[in-house]
């Protein structure tokens, strides 16, 4: 039997991967990234390294090069199965060969075959992508982890074993001898106002619109790299044209419309679908609870809502959605406080289907907010489910944790006409959730159409333009083989409003970035085809399915980008090579930091029940898992981990007082928008209850309403002064409170330094606008 246990030896001497280097170069929103894997064989025999790693789901993988003995060998694209046969045949003849597969749009596997003893090889993978667009800037996410996934019982029976193995690389907790370094050189569309890297120690320098930066040394690959870039000025619409190598033109359009003010808000049915599977235990579950608390308070009295917690099974807060009022809000808050990573596996399909298939309350629009890390392997089934129910509810997934499955999260949003968000545990959750709730609550532009100067593009992505939400940008790519459009007109329809029509003139895009556009278009187009292909052949439509397959292969080969049906292969001839035995080494990966599934992901919910059938996959991926499912065995496993793998339990730091007070203030807001008067609130505005009660007594209102008005004004004063810098986190709460005050004919005067005199002014009816962030 071939020895494979060497991977898990304590000193990790047998891991052939020695390091990863990432270099990203950007121009405008376009990005070209090179990921270099350095391998060295320290064993006395020839080895084959098999390494599964993540790349962004939107990445167009366009380059695969191998540097060996001073020679650079470029890889070519070919059919996936044929490539493997050639690769295997090369290894059988004793020559080196290198293969790159796409297992999921965001998970790839490299086969580095026939590394002779002491041989070193550098494998370079290049991809193009775009920076993730944010309303105030951009976000760069470089995935670093392939987190353990949950497989449904059906998948265990039907998935190809190699696919399972690719998706579950051996995972260890604790340090590995390899890590990654990262360098960046970005030329941005405008000057930067701020740079934030919540994931890693990162140093940078800004020169005008150029950002150069690097990681402070080698970092462990236990979480994704996240960089938030805030621009000084807001995004401008842009339209650029690039000429591809084959003479065709590719046009890229980016447009961020403002939503007209004063639009009526439709009553919503908001269903919060919360992942409580084992992998969420710990910081991801805490993120989900905080997110829920914030979102709930952004609902309006006309809305209905429900919360569904899911794992191996699912539990609804209410049997059907209920109106948003204080009693239901309090019940929901109690339910939210109980949510943990306590429900075992990650069966998203049944609760999602149940939510989509529920009868929609009359006069309401359904929105589903999905809080999850997305660590499942049945993405295709879920995307198909949503695609087949286009009018049953838009999904707004929020990716939580340090390595969420971006492919699932983005695909569900795209397929349902919703919008996706990601929150790193060390980034601020509140602004993201406020942004999300604005998208949920505001009407979207729909339909969206583009007039390409009367021309019909050869390829366009997205093929069907999705609804455009507030705070989102329209992003479209099109290819023209002949004449290119000189003028592009965007038309956005708004329910109950005038259409927004915006003509744009494409500007010429030159330089290396121009080569990125055709590849980005091909990748986006391929992704849509692959989503369709993964859904499987429709009944009686096998011919169309085969045609789809041919189309994927054609685009992948013509553009030289990787797809699910193709592989990159480098198989150089080495005359005189002698066949020799080659031992496979699967490269272990570090378990995602904060991943909570070790204790519970596959554990039975009922004592005595058999474990989930996919537990054995985790056992294969995670060697110490095999100690079993009994409590004693768990204790033993835990002990072994701590001794051998330097296992550390990280407890979250306590909230700082400012954060604590802010959260309390937001959470004490009543469903209708007002606050109750209490000692704590009086203390926060540096006065006492008696003074505030006296103020309330002077008002020509009934006693409870009068004290609520005083309390609400006090809370708003606090938000505008002490928490002024968190305007992006409280603007929805404040807007709701102001609407409630308006019903009492109370408006906010300009903020003054003295709270009491300001309160008196407000209550005496002195008019005057209050602007966000106004201070003394």
């Amino acid at each position, binding site marked *: 039997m071939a020895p494979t246990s060497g991977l898990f030896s304590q000193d990790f001497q047998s891991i052939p991967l020695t390091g990863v280097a990432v270099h990203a170069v950007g121009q405008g929103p376009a990005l070209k990234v090179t990921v270099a894997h350095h391998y060295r064989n320290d064993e006395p025999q020839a080895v*084959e390294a098999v390494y599964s790693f993540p790349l962004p789901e939107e990445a167009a993988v366009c380059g695969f090069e191998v540097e060996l003995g001073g020679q650079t060998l470029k890889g070519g694209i070919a059919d996936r*199965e044929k490539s493997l046969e050639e690769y295997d045949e090369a290894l059988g003849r004793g020559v080196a060969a290198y293969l790159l597969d796409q297992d999921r749009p965001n998970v790839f596997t490299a086969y580095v075959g026939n590394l002779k003893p002491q041989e070193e090889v550098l494998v370079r993978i290049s991809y193009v992508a775009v920076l993730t667009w944010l309303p105030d800037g951009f976000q760069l996410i470089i995935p670093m982890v392939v987190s353990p996934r949950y497989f449904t019982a059906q998948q265990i029976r039907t998935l*190809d074993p190699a696919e399972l193995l690719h998706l579950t690389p051996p995972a260890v907790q604790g340090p590995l001898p390899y890590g990654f370094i990262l360098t960046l050189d970005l030329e941005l569309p405008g000057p930067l106002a701020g740079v934030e890297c919540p994931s890693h120690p990162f140093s940078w320098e800004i020169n005008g619109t150029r950002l150069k930066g690097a990681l402070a040394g080698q970092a462990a690959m236990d979480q994704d790299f996240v960089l938030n870039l805030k621009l000084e000025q807001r995004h401008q619409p842009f339209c650029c044209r690039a000429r591809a190598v084959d003479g065709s033109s590719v046009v890229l359009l980016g447009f961020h419309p403002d939503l007209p003010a004063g639009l009526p808000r439709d009553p919503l049915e908001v269903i919060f679908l919360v992942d409580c599977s084992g992998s969420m235990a710990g910081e991801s579950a805490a993120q989900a609870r905080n997110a829920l608390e914030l979102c709930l308070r952004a609902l309006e009295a006309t809305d209905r809502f429900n919360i569904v917690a899911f794992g191996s099974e699912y539990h609804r807060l209410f049997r059907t959605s209920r109106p948003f009022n204080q009693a239901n809000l309090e019940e929901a808050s109690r339910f939210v406080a109980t949510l943990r990573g306590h429900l075992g596996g990650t069966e998203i399909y049944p609760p999602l289907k149940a939510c989509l298939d529920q009868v929609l309350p009359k006069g309401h629009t359904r929105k589903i907010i999905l809080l999850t890390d997305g660590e499942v392997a049945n993405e295709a089934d879920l995307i198909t489910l949503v695609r087949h129910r286009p009018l049953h509810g838009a999904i707004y997934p929020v990716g939580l944790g340090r390595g969420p499955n971006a492919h699932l999260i983005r695909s569900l949003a795209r397929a349902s006409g919703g919008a996706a968000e990601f929150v790193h545990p060390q980034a601020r959750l509140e602004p993201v959730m406020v942004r999300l709730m604005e998208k949920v609550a505001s009407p979207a532009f729909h339909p969206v159409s583009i007039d390409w100067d009367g021309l019909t593009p050869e390829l366009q992505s997205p093929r069907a333009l999705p609804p455009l939400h507030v705070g989102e940008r329209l992003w479209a790519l099109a290819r023209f083989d002949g004449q290119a459009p000189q003028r592009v007109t965007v038309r956005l329809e708004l329910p109950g409003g005038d259409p927004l029509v915006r003509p744009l003139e494409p500007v010429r895009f030159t330089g290396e970035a121009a080569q990125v556009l055709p590849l980005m278009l091909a990748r986006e187009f391929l992704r849509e085809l692959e989503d369709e292909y993964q859904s499987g052949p429709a009944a009686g439509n096998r011919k169309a399915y085969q045609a789809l397959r041919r189309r994927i292969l054609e685009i992948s080969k013509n553009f030289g980008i990787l797809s699910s049906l193709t592989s990159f292969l480098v198989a150089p001839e080495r005359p005189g090579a002698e066949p020799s035995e080659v031992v496979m080494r699967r490269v272990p990966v570090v378990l995602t930091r904060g991943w909570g599934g070790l204790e519970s992901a596959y554990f039975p919910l009922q004592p005595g029940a058999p474990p989930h059938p996919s537990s054995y996959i985790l056992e*294969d991926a995670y060697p110490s898992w095999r100690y079993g499912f009994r409590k004693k065995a768990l204790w033993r496993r835990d002990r072994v981990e701590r001794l051998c793998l330097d296992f550390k339990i990280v407890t979250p730091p306590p909230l700082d007082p400012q954060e604590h007070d802010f959260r309390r203030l937001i959470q004490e807001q009543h469903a209708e928008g007002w606050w109750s008067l209490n000692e704590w609130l009086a203390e926060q505005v540096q006065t006492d209850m008696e003074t505030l009660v006296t103020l309330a007594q002077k008002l020509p209102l009934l006693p409870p309403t009068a004290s609520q008005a005083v309390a609400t004004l006090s809370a708003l004063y606090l938000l505008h002064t002490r928490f002024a810098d968190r305007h992006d986190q409280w603007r929805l709460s404040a807007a709701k409170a102001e609407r409630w005050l308006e019903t009492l004919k109370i408006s906010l005067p300009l903020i003054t330094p003295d709270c009491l005199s300001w309160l008196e002014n407000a209550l005496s009816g002195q008019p005057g606008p209050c602007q966000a962030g106004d201070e003394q």
Partner: protein
Amino acid sequence: MAKIEYNLGELADKAQVSRRTVRFYIALGLISPPLGRGRGRHYTDTHLQEILTVRRLQARGVSLGQIQRHGDVRSLESSLAEPPPPELQIHLATRITLEPGVLLEFDHDTCGRTPTEMQDIARRCREALTPGERKT
């Protein structure tokens, strides 16, 4: 005549797994390595049977790690083989108590009586059992 030598693609297609799966199984020592060297490498029906055995074991929830530790897939499968469950026999019958300790049974497979007929027979039996009328 059945072909007894396969290349990697043929073997994978026959076993209905991917080519990558065959290679993984070999690397993990779950199935035998190919015969021959270099361009002459090939597989036989033995490899095919080994793959099918691993798939059966996986379908039963046995992990690759367990199979790997055991070494021989065939002996592992035999050791796990459970006696076939006893054949279920369904026997439908109607029983009517005539008097304590005396039961009348109608076998549904062989007796084609209706419930009314069964009740009628039971009534007549009870009459036959009535003291004083018992015949010797």
